[in-house]
């Protein structure tokens, strides 16, 4: 169960990851933890690390921008309201990553294999569950295909069931796309799009 606040944080953690990295990679004044290749295990939950203000490690001229993009993500994570809400588990696992690891990793390495569990699960689900299901339910709506391979329809109980599943899958895929467009937009549309096409990050030009 997610509260509104929790939902925002869940959506925001992906955004923050994208927005944070681009800015941080060009930072030249690392803080005490910033050169740690592998961040200490305690760092994910240690209040000391969480209290550690990311802005401090940033170059002075980037401070305002960083605050602007992280105002929600880096807001004090462990307040009474959070602890009493249904989103406390998510906040425990995600919020530290919002404020801590992106900043503590050295420049340039923040993006290396940096997808977290939720992101990986989402992609695994979309690629290996949702897309095959969409193709299957799509074929199940074809009367000709159903005449050759009746199981395409019968496993769903009928063509109308397949159609319902197909439509909900469509809604999810469209939302998935929209969320990603918002993420790309917030992370710097031109730079991210260029990175997608050319494969070069060009992090220092993150001004869109």
């Amino acid at each position: 169960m997610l509260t509104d606040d929790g939902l925002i944080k869940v959506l925001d953690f992906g955004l923050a990851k994208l927005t944070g990295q681009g800015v941080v990679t060009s930072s030249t004044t690392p803080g005490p933890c910033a050169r740690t290749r592998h961040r200490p295990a305690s760092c994910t939950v240690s209040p000391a690390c969480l209290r550690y203000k990311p802005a401090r490690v940033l170059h002075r001229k980037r401070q305002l921008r960083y605050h602007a993009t992280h105002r929600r993500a880096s807001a004090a994570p462990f307040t009474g309201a959070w602890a009493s809400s249904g989103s406390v588990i998510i906040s425990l696992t995600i919020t530290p990553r919002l404020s801590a690891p992106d900043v503590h990793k050295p420049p340039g390495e923040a993006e290396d294999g940096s997808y977290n569990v939720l992101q990986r699960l989402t992609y695994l689900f979309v690629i290996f569950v949702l897309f095959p299901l969409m193709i299957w339910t799509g074929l199940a709506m074809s009367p000709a295909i159903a005449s050759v391979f009746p199981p395409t329809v019968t496993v769903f109980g009928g063509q109308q069931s397949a159609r319902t599943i197909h439509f909900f899958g469509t809604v999810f895929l469209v939302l998935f796309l929209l969320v990603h467009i918002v993420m790309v937009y917030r992370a710097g549309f031109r730079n991210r799009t260029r990175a997608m096409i050319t494969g070069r990050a060009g992090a220092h030009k993150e001004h869109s």
Partner: protein
Amino acid sequence: MSNVSRRKLITTGLAATAGVSGLAVAPRVADRYGLIPPDHGGIYGPGETLTYASQRLLTRHSLAREFPRSQISTRPFANGKPPQGEDFKRLQAGGFADWRLAIDGMVARPASLSLAELRSYPSRSQITHLACEEGWSFIAEWIGVPLFHVLNIVRILPQARYVVYFSIQRGWEDSVDMADALHPQTLLTYGMNGGELPVGHGGPLRLRLPRQLGYKNVKYIARLTVTDSLKEFSAEGSYAWYAGI
């Protein structure tokens, strides 16, 4: 260095020649085996062609699923309004006794058949699913004479490739290839669920193709034309010509 580049030149040249000639021959081969749909042009043409070709290779002889009697829908949805023309109303008032099915085109013996004649032919009953691209669907028992039987009576010519069927409503027509026209489940339907085919469901005569979507199952059939080209016939709006999907 020069050897490598010469070899490369030869290999590339041969590959390019093979590719180009393959591309040139492929449409002819595909056309010869009836894998090119009439709507192969335009933006959606390649997609339609791919769909049609795969379906023809996969589903030429497959039979649509038939259901047990218990699965028949209690309230089948009758889409649209009956024809509003005077001719249809006059025929309906006469109990469709004067309804005629005209058959012309590439046939040895053009004919004009009454409903009584159609009923005298061997009938077939099947309980199949009718699905519309709008989303609704139902299962019903359909009773009629297989189209292949009627086509055998009028004796189609060898060059025939399509059967065009016309509703009594002007401008409402569609067509199928011979694979679907001669398919055993393609029926000229005059009965439904044990009774007469209701006007709402296309009575007195509807073409049923259980392997294609609803819009190919044209109601109020009054004429069939056998042809080898669809150039002079209009297609069904913007829908795909092949509706096995």
